[in-house]
């Protein structure tokens, strides 16, 4: 196998396949994940190869999907659940935050719930309402869950492997508008720890932190800034809970400026947590307040407005300039 160039969706598909092959306790379940292979074809071919006992088309009920996944995990299975779109996870919210997240603690550690919930999230695909949301902060606030999001094919493959192998519930946010972006996956690699941030591009003047779909935008912004002589470091956060503050801190101690970028609304978003904590850790290093670029405090708009709503190159560069102007 060694190295292959794959789109993110295919990397996830391969990762699921690998998990199904390796561990007979792994199950894939969700709406339309079987026969159809998922609305994004992420589970394509798995039903055919592993059968309906392993790749399960479920009734149309998200609370039921997560609730029965919990029951299956109690029986020793390792369900990998698909929620069809970000906006449809909320019927399962109760099962996720009161049951899935808390059962390990409730049982004083006797119960482990290795359930992975895959959610294609974020905008940029011209969809109708509820198909473009970024609800990660609504999960990251909840103790007992781990929240991650890959930004490229290699991470998509490996982070999902790690999520499935771990014994904690993980919400795995997939950047749906990047599903078709190709990248190299080294199937023999030794992956970085699941919850570590990664320096995507080194720089000295300012740090950009992003995750999921915004990593690409930030790398483009850094390249554009370089043309203007500004050296921008880009970090891929990869994990929103826990957050690898050490890596951010190390970067900010060097660059002294930080801008956090995500699609999710800024208000009470991940950027707030990062800004608050990094300001505490780097109070005497920061030359400018941590700036945040993200969604507005408004419902995700209709498709014809999403280009303006989503943080793009210009808005990131604007924040970079504002930070550097301090």
């Amino acid at each position: 196998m060694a190295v292959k160039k794959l789109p993110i969706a295919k990397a996830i598909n391969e990762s699921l396949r690998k998990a199904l092959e390796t561990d007979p306790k792994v199950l894939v379940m969700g709406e339309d994940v079987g026969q159809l292979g998922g609305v994004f074809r992420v589970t394509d071919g798995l039903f055919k190869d592993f059968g309906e006992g392993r790749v399960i088309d479920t009734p149309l009920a998200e609370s039921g999907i997560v609730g029965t996944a919990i029951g299956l995990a109690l029986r020793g299975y390792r369900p990998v659940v698909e929620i069809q779109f970000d906006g449809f996870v909320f019927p399962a919210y109760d099962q996720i935050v009161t049951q899935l997240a808390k059962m390990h603690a409730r049982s004083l550690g006797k119960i482990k719930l290795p359930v992975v919930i895959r959610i294609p999230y974020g905008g940029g695909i011209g969809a109708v309402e509820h198909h473009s949301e970024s609800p990660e902060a609504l999960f990251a606030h909840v103790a007992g869950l781990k929240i991650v999001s890959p930004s490229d094919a290699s991470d998509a493959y490996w982070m999902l492997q790690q999520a499935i192998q771990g014994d904690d519930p993980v919400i795995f946010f997939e950047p749906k508008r990047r599903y078709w972006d190709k990248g190299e996956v080294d199937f023999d690699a030794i992956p970085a720890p699941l919850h570590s941030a990664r320096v995507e591009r080194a720089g000295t003047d300012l740090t950009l932190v992003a995750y999921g779909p915004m990593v690409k935008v930030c790398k483009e912004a850094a390249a554009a800034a370089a043309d203007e002589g500004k050296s921008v470091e880009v970090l891929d956060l990869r994990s929103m809970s826990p957050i690898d503050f050490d890596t951010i801190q190390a970067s900010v101690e060097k660059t002294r400026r930080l801008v956090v970028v995500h699609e999710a609304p800024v208000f009470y978003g991940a950027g707030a947590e990062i800004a608050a904590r990094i300001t505490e850790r780097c109070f005497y290093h920061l030359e400018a307040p941590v700036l945040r670029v993200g969604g507005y405090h408004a419902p995700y708009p209709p498709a014809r407005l999403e280009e303006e709503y989503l943080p793009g190159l210009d808005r990131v560069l604007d924040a970079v300039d504002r930070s550097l102007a301090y």
Partner: protein
Amino acid sequence: MTVESTAARKPRRSSGAGTKRASAKKTPQAPDEPQLVQLLTPEGERVTHPDYEIDLTADELRGLYRDMVLTRRFDAEATSLQRQGELGLWASLLGQEAAQIGSGRALRDDDYVFPTYREHGVAWCRGVDPTNLLGMFRGVNHGGWDPNSNNFHLYTIVIGSQTLHATGYAMGVAKDGADSAVIAYFGDGASSQGDVAESFTFSAVYNAPVVFFCQNNQWAISEPTEKQMRVPLYQRAQGFGFPGVRVDGNDVLACLAVTKSALERARRGEGPTLVEAFTYRMGAHTTTDDPTRYRADEEREAWKAKDPILRVRTYLENQGLADAAFFEETEAESEALGKRVREAVRSMPDPDTMAIFENVYADGHALVDEERAQFAAYRASFAEEGK
């Protein structure tokens, strides 16, 4: 072949749950078990049903035919507008015209409708301008009409949610002492959602004047009804304490009669009814779907023989209730509708960018004001640069 016999895709349990498997003509019915209600056969033959009679004038019959033809035409136009890139997505109702027009024409003006995202035919009956339906599929808004102008609520995408809104609305109708009724549309897939069960409980407990109208079109995207239920859906109602009835969803007369009867029951203060319209989604789930991945052509072909429009045309012709001129007129009218819709969509303006910040709150919110101002200033800075 009756509609029902096709329905039995796999053997059902033969226990006390009381499913019936084959044609109603062959199996003697238990007294309390609703029949599949049919008033017009696929061959265009008028049949009777003891509980559901309906007496329509020729004008009314032609009206139902016209509604279905125009709805289908509109739907086809929307599908093709999507292919041309004018719409981002379309959810076709092809095959479900009778269920929608029959139930839609059973309503009074003061009744209130809670649709899913596929009730274009019901919208038509309510007098919602079809072009208004296209805004959300084009991506210019999330709902382009005033629900109260036509007592037709916005399309609801999150499956099942609207059944609770309908129930609450109906509780309000009862509180007001009005004799209006409410109808909630949902699909076979939606029947699995907890919200739908909760709406059954609330409406039963409060005796709310609501009709639950399920279009069982056999599929929830790629999942057949066996993934949602083990026995026919209409039977679910009685376990919540109200009647359920299965109607031939491709028979506009039966859909009209059964819905009318359920609405009247609601008006009389007798509470909710579940109507299961047994029909078929002839097209893809939406324009992004590829049904060849999960279902056989033969199934679709079998249902084609039960086309909801054709049987009415046959009936009208056989009974001499409509002449060639009528059919030509309807055809012309439907072409004109297609043209109007096409033009309306093509000239539909993009929303103003600042609309992002509008209507987030009714009474305003400081942060929205702040972000609106910042965004305006940010955009103005580009305009200046551009100078």
